[in-house]
């Protein structure tokens, strides 16, 4: 693959929008006439209705847990309807694809069981709530001074009330903040004039590329590791960040450099991170961090790792491990297990891939004829997994109001090479969203029958 045009054609041939239904043209007219959107779009209705058909194998499961409403829960976990067809979303989330898994026509049901080494010991753990510090306008104004930007913060036109965002734009540099959750903010500077380059004409057959200036690498301009560390410390002090220098992770190559570190609150790793990067001209091009603190909301009882296994399949108890945990993982193994699981029908399963079994317990034949449309396969694969070990870990959770929480949980490792991160708070401490419907993806075809609900 050496030709841009060939690459472009190949991408166009795989265009996921080619199967998209036409958009209702009244969407434009409604916008101009102030008509509100329908509360329940016809396509949603069609999708929900359609998900149950295309053969008797179409199935939806409604998994219901008892609701404990008293005492009042600390918060309501955000509805994570994305990725609802997956019960083992953590690995995918770490790759930033959890939302998209519902597109995949293949469908597996993961059945988890607890291995003999899991502990049945209960305990207690602290719950922390993220509380925004300060005011978004003041924050951006103060940070703009640190980074040398001029201009006033303005509310972004795409901002909404639940997730307000504000920006300062000053030429190629800008700052913005999303004033919810962790109060994430960033500085970016995409300066075009500060690196050495030579003119190149890369116009190809498709005539889509213009001439541009090919960068000439100037590694001598990029700060040394010691300089990067020193600048990071200086910037963290100027921006009022709490930090631990030994936690810096530094990367440097001929294209630029990066530093990342955990965002701390009163010495506690919040699970959020601060990032800095330098461009090929050696100038700081990006800085992102947060403006929040952790508030102790008390000690709460936790369930055992053994009992936490049953929560995996529910789909509503997932929390996010901190970045520091992901950095200890062997990503290649996790990625391979996942990608192999959805890959071609012609390849034999690898050692790391979960083996589907049929209902009688024998190995199922998952091979698919080469000429069969994979989207026609609605028979779910049953995948048996055994949770073999666990670690306790503080997990990040977002509530239904967009607030950030840090709660006790477990990393539950299974025998197929990946893991799930499950909240360990006893039932009733937090309120769960509505039960999740698990159904095969079909956003395209029109089907008649409603999904079958199973308690």
């Amino acid at each position, binding site marked *: 693959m050496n030709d841009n045009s060939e690459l472009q054609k190949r991408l166009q041939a795989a265009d996921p929008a080619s199967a998209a239904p036409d958009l209702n043209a009244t969407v434009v007219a409604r916008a*101009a006439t102030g008509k509100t959107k329908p509360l329940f779009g016809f396509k949603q209705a069609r999708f929900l209705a359609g998900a149950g058909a295309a053969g008797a194998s179409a199935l939806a499961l409604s998994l219901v847990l008892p609701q404990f409403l008293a005492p009042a829960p600390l918060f309501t976990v955000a509805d994570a309807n994305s990725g609802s067809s997956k019960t083992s979303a953590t690995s995918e989330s770490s790759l930033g694809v959890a939302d998209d898994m519902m597109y995949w026509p293949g469908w597996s049901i993961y059945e988890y069981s607890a291995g003999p080494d899991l502990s049945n010991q209960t305990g207690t753990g602290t719950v922390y709530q993220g509380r925004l510090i300060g005011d978004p306008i003041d924050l951006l104004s103060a940070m703009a001074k640190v980074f040398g930007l001029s201009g006033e913060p303005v509310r972004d036109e795409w901002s909404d009330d639940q997730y307000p965002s504000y920006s300062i734009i000053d030429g190629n540099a800008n700052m913005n903040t999303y004033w919810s959750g962790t109060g994430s903010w960033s500085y970016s500077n995409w300066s075009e004039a500060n690196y050495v380059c030579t003119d190149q004409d890369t116009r190809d057959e498709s005539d889509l590329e213009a001439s541009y200036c090919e960068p000439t690498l100037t590694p001598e301009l990029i700060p040394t590791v010691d300089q990067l560390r020193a600048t990071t410390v200086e910037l963290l002090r100027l921006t009022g960040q709490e930090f631990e220098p030994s936690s810096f992770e530094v990367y440097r190559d001929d294209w630029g450099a990066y530093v990342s570190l955990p965002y701390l609150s009163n010495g506690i790793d919040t699970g959020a991170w601060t990032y800095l990067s330098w461009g090929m001209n050696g100038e700081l091009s990006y800085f992102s961090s947060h403006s929040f603190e952790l508030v102790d909301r008390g000690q709460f009882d936790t369930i055992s790792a053994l009992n936490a296994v049953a929560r995996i399949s529910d789909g509503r108890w997932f929390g*996010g491990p901190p970045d520091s945990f992901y950095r200890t993982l062997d990503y290649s193994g996790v990625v391979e297990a996942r990608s192999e699981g959805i890959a071609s029908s012609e390849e034999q399963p690898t050692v790391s891939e979960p083996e589907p079994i049929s209902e009688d317990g024998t190995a199922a034949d998952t091979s698919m004829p080469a000429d069969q449309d994979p989207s026609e396969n609605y028979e779910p694969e049953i995948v048996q997994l055994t949770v073999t070990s666990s670690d306790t870990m503080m997990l990040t959770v977002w509530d239904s109001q967009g607030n950030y929480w840090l709660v006790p949980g477990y990393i539950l490792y299974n025998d197929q090479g990946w893991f799930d991160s499950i909240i360990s708070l006893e039932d009733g401490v937090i309120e769960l969203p509505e039960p999740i419907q698990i159904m095969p993806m079909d956003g395209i075809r029109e089907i008649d029958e409603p999904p079958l609900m199973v308690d």
Partner: protein
Amino acid sequence: MSPEEFNSLYRSYLPKVNAYLARRLPFDEVEDIAGDLFELAWSKRDRIPEGLELPWLYKSARYLVSNRHRKQSARNAILARLAEPTAAPSAESIALADVELGEAFSKLTAKEREVIALWSLEGLSNSDLGKVLEMSENAAAIRLTRAKQKLKLLLSNENIA
């Protein structure tokens, strides 16, 4: 601009907006986000530069898609940490048609996937890439070039393997 003029002008962009959103969202959510997008366009119609309506729509759609992902990222703290928006098609959606390409695509960063998609699927020039991604044309071209080089390398490696 009257509602009729708005409807006439912006309706012509509907297929492209539909395709953009359908590449990045479940199909059943496209109409809602498109509704938000055109409502935004109507409210800002006097500030959208003439002739740049489509890049403006892409730029704003990018934020709406990014916001939508934020709202649904209860399991995913990583998205919430990203201060810079990205709106890229999923590797899985690409893989529906081309598994090898989808696998290579999955190994790109979100920003790389986004710029590749805007170039190959939306067919944007470097100039429009810069407008949509809110960076200079040159910076956009560099990001695109590096992303293409990485994708080609990944595909090349897979062919060898």
